[in-house]
């Protein structure tokens, strides 16, 4: 993407924030997310190395997969040796682990937390439920494919995957980040309208800004 495209996207229409009341609308930003252009090749390579070696995960357990994070944190599997640490706030974290099925209530919070995370940010989708719905494929309140609502970098299949598979997923994520393949944030910004339409199709009571800066 060259500079001209970037400027066009920035100039595009502001977000409507129709879910908010008139009074609240002034309190939130109406700017759209914009794709970030990579820096100079060598600088970007160094930055990608740095990003890959300090993955901070958001401490937000969605679904039953969150239980796999406890053994991962503690001494048996010890994710700290890979440079992975849990963070309490989306503002400080760079990896979002979707731990299994996401109900409609959860997907609203997932979208909000994902948008609040600062870039570069990566998503690991854990378990079958995030891939095709898993055992909840016919449920009335759980979504089937998480990648229709937020971009996903790595899938870890299984029901439930053990912490070893999660570590393998982390290592694969590191490889991809170092190779510059994890571009989920830009994908989200480029296809913003498509993701938003999918989200708003299922979340009927949209009472937050269109993009949570």
């Amino acid at each position, binding site marked *: 993407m060259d500079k001209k495209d970037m400027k066009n996207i920035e100039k595009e229409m502001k977000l409507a924030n129709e879910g908010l009341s008139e009074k609240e609308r002034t309190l939130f930003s109406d700017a759209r997310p914009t794709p970030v252009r990579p820096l100079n090749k060598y600088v970007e390579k160094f930055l990608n190395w740095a990003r890959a070696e300090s993955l901070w995960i958001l401490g937000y357990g969605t679904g039953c997969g969150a239980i796999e994070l406890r053994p991962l944190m503690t001494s048996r599997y010890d994710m700290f040796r890979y440079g992975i640490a849990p963070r309490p706030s989306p503002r400080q974290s760079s990896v979002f682990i979707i731990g299994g099925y996401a109900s409609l209530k959860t997907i609203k919070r997932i979208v909000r937390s994902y948008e609040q995370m600062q870039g570069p940010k990566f998503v690991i989708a854990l378990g079958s439920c995030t*891939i095709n*719905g898993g055992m909840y494929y016919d449920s*009335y309140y*759980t979504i089937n494919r998480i990648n229709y609502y937020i971009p996903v970098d790595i899938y870890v299949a299984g029901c439930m995957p053990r912490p070893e598979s999660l570590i393998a997923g982390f290592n694969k994520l590191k490889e991809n980040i170092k190779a510059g393949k994890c571009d989920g944030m830009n994908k989200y910004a480029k296809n913003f309208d498509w993701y938003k339409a999918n989200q708003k*199709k*299922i979340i009927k*009571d949209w009472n937050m800004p269109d993009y949570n800066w």
Partner: protein
Amino acid sequence: MEEILRTLEQQFAITHQNKMRDDLLFVDVKKDQIISLLTYLKDYAGFTHLAFLQAVDRIEDKKFQLTYMLYSFQLKTNLGIRVFIDREKAEMISIDKLWAHAWQYQRELKEMFGIDFPGSPRVDESFVLESWEEMPPMKRDFDTLEYSIKTYYQRPGRSTNDPKKYMKKKLYNNFAKSPDTGRKND
């Protein structure tokens, strides 16, 4: 316990009795007698604890079955009171004056089955479902698969296997053929 049952039979029109275990039995009662029956059980018979209130959709009989499960700490006995109400115009008397926590069950039943409890506090608020616009999802005429296909994007290529046949074919082929049914080399 027999004494209480005899009183119930004499004073209330109990239509059916079912003893599952020594400490678990069910009685059926008419809808309009539920308040007096529960009041008697709570105040005089010692069934002070409402364990749960739940519904079953008897779609074949066009009825909802409500079960009030009571527990007595003296007798250490569970007593289920079953009431059948009309499915089309589902409405039931609220018991939040007897057990204050019943409003939460009633709110859930309103949301999941569409059974109305007039006068129950906050009964119209959503309980677990946010922004739900379809019919109550636990009703058996609600097709969840159809709704899921319509609303959430299915990933094509999903296949299912009968677990028993699949395991026989894949893993325990030799084991299944062997005349010895006991688990040997496992």
